[in-house]
Every structure is written in C-alpha cells, then in structure tokens.
C-alpha cells in the first residue's frame, strides 16, 4: 500500500455537536485502497501553533465520490482550525498510514467506541458487514446530544448507546452495557480513551475472545521515520504509526 502526499479539497464540513464535526474531503487523484483502522496525517496551515501534522483516523471512504471522511473533536489549535475549513479549501494529507483491524468472517463482532475514538469504527463496521459478519456497535457518550451518526452505523448492523447521564440507552460506560452480559461475541474491536479500551480488553480476556484496540500516541511523522510514537509491547517498543495503530491486546503489556 503506497503512501502518498496529496492535496485534497474540502467538500463539506458537518457540525455534529459543540465539540465534534466531520470533514469530507475529495482527492484529485483516484484514491488508493484504504483499510479500516488506517489514518491520515493532516497539515494544518495558517496556524502559528501547529508545526507538525495532526494524525486523524479515517472515518469513512466513499470511492464513488473519491472522498474520505474525518471525524474530529476540537481539542487545541489544530483541530479548531480544521473546524473552520469550508467547502473548496485545500487540505494536505499524508496517507494512508498505519495497519488495519483484522476482518474475520461469519462472526459475531462487537465494536466499542468512546469519545472521538468512534472515528475508525464506522468504516470498520462496513468492512465487517461486507465480509459477512454480524456487527454490533456500542457507542459510549456523555449525553444523548453526543450520540451522533446513529443512522450511518445502523446501515451495517445493530447500534447501541450508553450515556454517562442516562439520557439515552443504558446509563454508564459502554463496557457496562447489558448486552455484554446477555450475549456472546466472537470478536471485539475498540477505540477510545485508554481506560475504556482497557476495560474492553479485560472483558475480552474474561470471555477469551480476540480484542483489537487502536492506540493513540504523540506522532511527528506518522510513517515510521522518527520513532517518536512507540508503545511498549511484549516484544519491545513498537511504532504506533506503522506497527499500529491497531494492536491485538495479547501483544500489549496491558
């Protein structure tokens, strides 16, 4: 999978709630094959406080429109600046980066996302469904207003929600959802805050099913050149940007 540096054109920015938005961007050249779990490294221009690129998961790919969708949470200068882009603006990407989630077949798969960790799960759900799996996605959010894009997930399977304030779905964290005790799954995939992913990992270990997590890290390059993004694994330090971001929990020292 050849990595590219390319300009994209912003097609559309959609505000999901106060913090989150999606950015749909179109490539000028035909997109290469992009796997679920991969990410892009975005150059934030016209900003004094973003010297390095910003890594963002690929939220969705539309080959017909030749576009990629990003799901972004406003955190600091960089993401805030991205949240001001409008249709027609240019955006420079290094992509596609990183490895990918495994795609089993004919299995009962469980996807658990929290915060902006939900970003890669939509595209993963699509691939899982296409490979003949049964897909259940649990999104853990703070409040009903944060439960966005429900319909998109529905297209690929079942979508469940937990809210911290109980305003929608089960109250609590996604790993406290009743379905985890009521049903059994063959595979689990997760992305989100580390404590949540660790809870999912504990659940998977208990149930003795495979679990893949997507890690974040501080990245300078995103393609294996700087070694700034290591995570400890059972076989030594590994680069999150090339040997991850997706790791099987069995490889981690969790």
């Amino acid at each position, binding site marked *: 999978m050849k990595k590219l540096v390319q300009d994209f054109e912003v097609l559309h920015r959609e505000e999901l709630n106060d913090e989150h938005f999606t950015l749909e961007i179109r490539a000028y050249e035909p997109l290469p094959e992009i796997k679920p779990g991969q990410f892009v490294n975005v150059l934030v221009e016209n900003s004094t406080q973003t010297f*390095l690129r910003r890594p963002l998961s690929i939220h969705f790919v539309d080959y017909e429109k030749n576009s990629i969708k990003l799901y972004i949470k406003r955190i600091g200068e960089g993401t805030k600046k991205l949240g001001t882009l409008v249709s027609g603006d240019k955006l420079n990407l290094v992509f596609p980066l990183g490895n990918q989630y495994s795609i089993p077949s004919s299995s009962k798969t469980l996807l658990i996302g929290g915060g902006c960790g939900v970003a890669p799960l939509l595209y993963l759900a699509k691939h899982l469904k296409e490979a003949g799996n049964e897909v259940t996605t649990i999104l853990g959010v703070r409040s009903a207003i944060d439960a966005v894009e429900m319909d998109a997930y529905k297209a690929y399977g079942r979508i469940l929600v937990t809210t911290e304030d109980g305003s929608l779905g089960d109250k609590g964290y996604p790993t406290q959802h009743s379905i985890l005790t009521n049903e059994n799954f063959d595979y689990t995939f997760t992305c989100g805050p580390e404590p949540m992913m660790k809870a999912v990992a504990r659940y998977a270990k208990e149930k003795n099913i495979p679990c893949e997590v997507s890690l974040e890290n501080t990245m300078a390059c995103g393609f294996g050149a700087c070694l700034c993004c290591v995570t400890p694994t059972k076989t030594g330090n590994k680069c999150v940007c090339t040997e991850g971001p997706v790791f099987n929990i069995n490889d981690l020292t969790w």
Partner: protein
Amino acid sequence: MVNLEVNLKGLSLKNPVMTASGTFGYGEEFDDFIDIDRLGGILVKGTTRHHREGNPYPRMAETPSGMLNAVGLQNKGVENFCNDIYPRIKHYNTNILVNVSGSTIEDYIETASMINELDRIPAIELNISCPNVKEGGMAFGTSCVSAASVVKAVRKVYNKHLMVKLSPNVTDISEIAKAVEAEGADSVSLINTLLGMAIDAESRRPLLSTITGGLSGPCVKPVALRMVWQVFRAINIPIIGLGGIMNAKDAIEFILAGASAIQIGTANFIDPQVTVKVVEGIKEYMIRHKVQNISDLVGALEIQ
C-alpha cells in the same frame, strides 16, 4: 548548466542535500514519497554497539516552530545493521552514511570498525552530541578533551570519511571543531539538537518521559547558522550545516554561512518530499543568481 556537485574531502555528493540522522529512518521509509537516489546522501539512524530500546513514551512534544524529541537512540545495534539492514538498503545510488553513537570510547571503536567493513558505506557521522542518552553520549561533545579523545580513537580504526557531529550545547563550538579537526576528522556536521524541555501547565508534568529532550526545527535555525558561521572561520575541513532547514532558501543561508553541504531533519516529517524540493530550489536559485558551481556559494556571505 549549474553544477551542484560537492566534494567533501574525497566524499563526493551529487548535490549538497543530505538527510539528518534519526529523521529519515533507513531511507526505505521515504521510498513511497521520493526517489532517494536524487539526494546527495542519506544519514541513517543513530547506530550503537548494542541494541537499545530507547526511552519510554512520551518521546515527543511540539514547541513553537519546532519539536522536542527524546527517542534515545532506539536501534537494534550495529550487528543487526550490518546483517539485516545494510543488505536491504545498499542498493541506493547515493551516499549512505551511518550515524555512530556510543556511551564509551570502546563502543564507538567497535561500531565504527564494523561499519568500516561495509563497501557501500563511504563515511560515518560520529555522533558525540546526542542529548538523549544518560551515559555520556553528549558529554563527549561538550569538552574539547573528550571530543578529541573519541575522534582520535575512532580515527585509528576507521579509514574512510570521518564526519563528526557537534553539539550546540557548548560555550564555544569552534573550539570543539578545532579539537576534532586536529584529531583527523574529515568534516564536521552541526548542529545536533539543543537541549530543551516542555511542560504541561495543566497536569504539571513534563511532556517528555525524560523531562529534557532535543530541540529541532526552524526555531533553532538562527543558532545553527551562527554556529556554522563561527566554525567556518575556525577550521579548514568542510562543514555540513543543519538545524531547521525547511526549504531551499534556508539551505542557501547555511551554504552562504560556510556549509559545503546541508542536512534536512525535522522538515521530513512535515513534508516527506522536502529534500528533493530543496535540490530543485537550490538549482533554481543558482540559475537565477547565475552561480555556476555550488561551491562558489560556500561561505560567500557578503560582509561590508
């Protein structure tokens, strides 16, 4: 046509643009982005006698117009380099230089003598200036005596081009440059990273696991240029200039200050194609300014 060839005391480069160690992996990481053979040379990762895991996470922090790193020379050791990596990368039709790092003089000697055996490695860059290693990596570069001693020892076992990479974290870099020149260094490269630190005011914690780390990027360019200029007036061997080069204009500035060649580091992370763009930009500058040979620009800063 303009002539970009550079001769660094026997080491000939097709153009003055090289990559900085630790920012260009083993070159392979850039195969997707550029044709590496178009560069004057590449400096591969800091290589040590033994395998090193490097420092714990987090290793990186962004700073105004720059970044701090605390990678800590993560590498699989020189044997692994010779057996596994070298065969994979020796096909490149450019100069491959190995950045040799160590904690003791014996380490440097061992590593350098093993690299000496590799046909397609015409030079090493002796890193006596890495700030991220506790056991003395930087100490060597911060006194004339210790800098001289390591160069002297390595010179005995290494008979190709010996480039010595200097630390900017010193009171008088030209003294160090003179000391390593006197021990037979063929060239000096400068600067390595400035020792810096970043803190997260909210969590009250340092942003790097090692608390301090190495500062690079455009923020250090004024310091790097000044040092190249100072060293240029102090020694007679060629200088390879680096520190914050982002484009051809920056590269020309280093050459005018006295650098015979340049290295590009941090910029590779932001634009993985920057190196070849700098080669083109230098060419364009030379044509526009009617400069035939790049060597005519070396140290050509005009002072009333």
